[in-house]
């Protein structure tokens, strides 16, 4: 009996748990990336214990990959040395950690995953209890294979109505974030459900779960159904989790029938508006990618909007497929050629310019449209740049027009 998060944790512990309980639970897989791994390694070394299980550890180079500075190169070197010393073979430099965790099957329905990155909520989209922690927590997991959780209360978000293209899960996530605020789901599980979510692809659901982090959520979850099981393999030996007579702390009903394309304005991702409020604002840089929106479906959307067009001369446009698999598939389908011919810059899979260290750092006074999830001052470079968050369709239409553009009016 319980919400999805109570069911997942309860199934793994073999006893029922309720929101508010503090539990010590096994972790199926823990990961860290090139910025958070070095501190996690230091915490692990202070534990003075052997690595609990190298197969349950994943290390990803994505935040500054390839290294853009000597400092970054030295961090990478330390991580590689650690991996070699401890026989960690799950070492990836081919995309964003959150995409790798799904593609490679480290995050599975019914599982428990902890990542040293706040957007580790993402795999909840396939019915895995996954959450972000800091490096010290992950260091302790490396040594013991376990961690402690307070079982969270659940905010159920019931989404109904037809989501008409070009609107996507990103618009839904931004809309909910704007409604409840950046701490609206603090310490809670956000459980996404309803007919609209049931019709979404797995990629779209991962976008919803990803942005639960930006609502303060401990995790974001979608129910496991046929769509989930087509693309994933559940954890062995535990039932496929489903909410059973759940008791939600709160339920939010969202009808998306008349939803407009959404845009988060500076200075925070919860400052969400209909696109009409800012349409026409000149834009210096467009970034399309990230753990929110760098997936194959997103590459298709960009190619469709850029096909037969050239990006605006005042708007440098950076496109970053989120993983090597996405990149190669988009190449095969001709989408990358279309994107490059339109004048966009296509970078190697990874976090791209999302966090202001590489691939399109911005200057004071510049305005950016980004498909990522964060627009805090200084996020992408100068604290005096403005960052607007949108769906890939809005971003691609904006790249062509040179100003914030409703994709429904493009072409």
């Amino acid at each position, binding site marked *: 009996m319980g919400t999805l998060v109570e069911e997942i944790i309860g199934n793994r512990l073999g006893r029922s748990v309720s929101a508010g309980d*503090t539990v010590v639970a096994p972790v199926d897989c823990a990961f860290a990336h090139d910025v*958070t791994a070095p501190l996690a390694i230091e915490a692990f070394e*202070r*534990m003075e214990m052997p690595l609990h299980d190298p197969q349950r550890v994943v290390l990803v180079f994505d935040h*500054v990959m390839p290294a853009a500075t000597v400092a970054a190169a030295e961090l990478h070197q330390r991580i590689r040395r650690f991996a070699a010393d401890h026989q960690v073979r799950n070492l990836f430099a081919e995309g964003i950690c959150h995409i790798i965790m799904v593609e490679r099957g480290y995050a599975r329905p019914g599982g428990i995953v902890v990542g040293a990155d706040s957007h580790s909520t993402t795999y909840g989209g396939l019915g895995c209890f996954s959450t972000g922690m800091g*490096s*010290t927590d992950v260091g302790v997991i490396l040594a013991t294979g376990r961690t402690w959780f307070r079982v969270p209360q659940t905010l159920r978000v019931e989404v109904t109505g037809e989501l008409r293209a070009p609107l996507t899960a990103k618009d839904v996530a931004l809309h909910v974030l704007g409604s409840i605020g950046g*701490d609206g789901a603090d310490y809670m599980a956000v459980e996404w459900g309803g007919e609209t979510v049931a019709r979404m692809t797995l990629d779209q659901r991962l976008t919803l779960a990803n942005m639960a982090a930006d609502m303060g959520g401990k995790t974001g979850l979608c129910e496991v159904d046929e769509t989930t099981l087509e693309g994933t393999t559940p954890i062995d030996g535990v039932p496929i989790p489903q909410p059973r007579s759940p008791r939600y702390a709160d339920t939010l009903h969202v009808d998306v029938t008349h939803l407009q394309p959404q845009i988060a304005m500076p200075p925070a991702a919860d400052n969400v508006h209909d696109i009409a409020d800012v349409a026409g604002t000149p834009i210096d840089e467009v970034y399309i990618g990230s753990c929110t929106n760098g997936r194959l479906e997103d590459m298709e959307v960009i190619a469709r909007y850029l096909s037969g067009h050239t990006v605006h001369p005042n708007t440098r446009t950076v496109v970053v497929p989120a993983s090597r698999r996405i990149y190669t598939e988009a190449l095969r389908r001709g989408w990358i050629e279309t994107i490059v011919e339109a004048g966009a810059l296509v970078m190697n899979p990874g976090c791209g310019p999302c966090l202001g260290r590489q691939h399109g750092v911005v200057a004071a006074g510049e305005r950016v449209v980004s498909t990522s999830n964060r627009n805090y001052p200084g996020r992408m470079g100068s604290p005096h740049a403005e960052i607007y968050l949108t769906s890939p369709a809005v971003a691609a239409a904006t790249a062509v027009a040179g100003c914030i553009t409703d994709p429904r009016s493009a072409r």
Partner: protein
Amino acid sequence: MGRAWVLGDGVSTDAVMPGRFNLTTDPKTLAHACLCEARPDFAAGVQPGDVIIAGRNFGCGSSREHAPVSIRETGVVAVVAASFARIFARNAVNIGLPVIRCPAAAAAIVDGDSVEVDLRTGTVISGGRRFDGEAPSQLAVRIADAGGLVELIHDSGWAALEESRA
């Protein structure tokens, strides 16, 4: 007794430690960059014993532990805020930076005021006024007493936490 450094609502870990400055694990280097854009006078002016006072959702955003490490390294004895983002609060406790949830203190204390905090009770005292903050959880106290999460689990194992309640 220390000086209050007052910040607003929604101070993110990007503001505490911008992504361009956290390509190191050295606490001293991190401390020099702490709040460098959000509060440029902080790193040079902060003294051991000082207290950060902030509004809602302090530490929101990235899980980067560099943020609480940088604050701890400046000698700040506690962060008092109207509320904390989840990962930041957990990280802070894990690495030995006390956090106190106290909306009344956050609303009343002005930058530069003298502040004293009682880490056991969550009480904040400033200019003769007394604000009752939230006392730390039993779990947070055990982690703090051990000197951090690593030290607690290293010395006592998970049994130490299985007995306690958050």
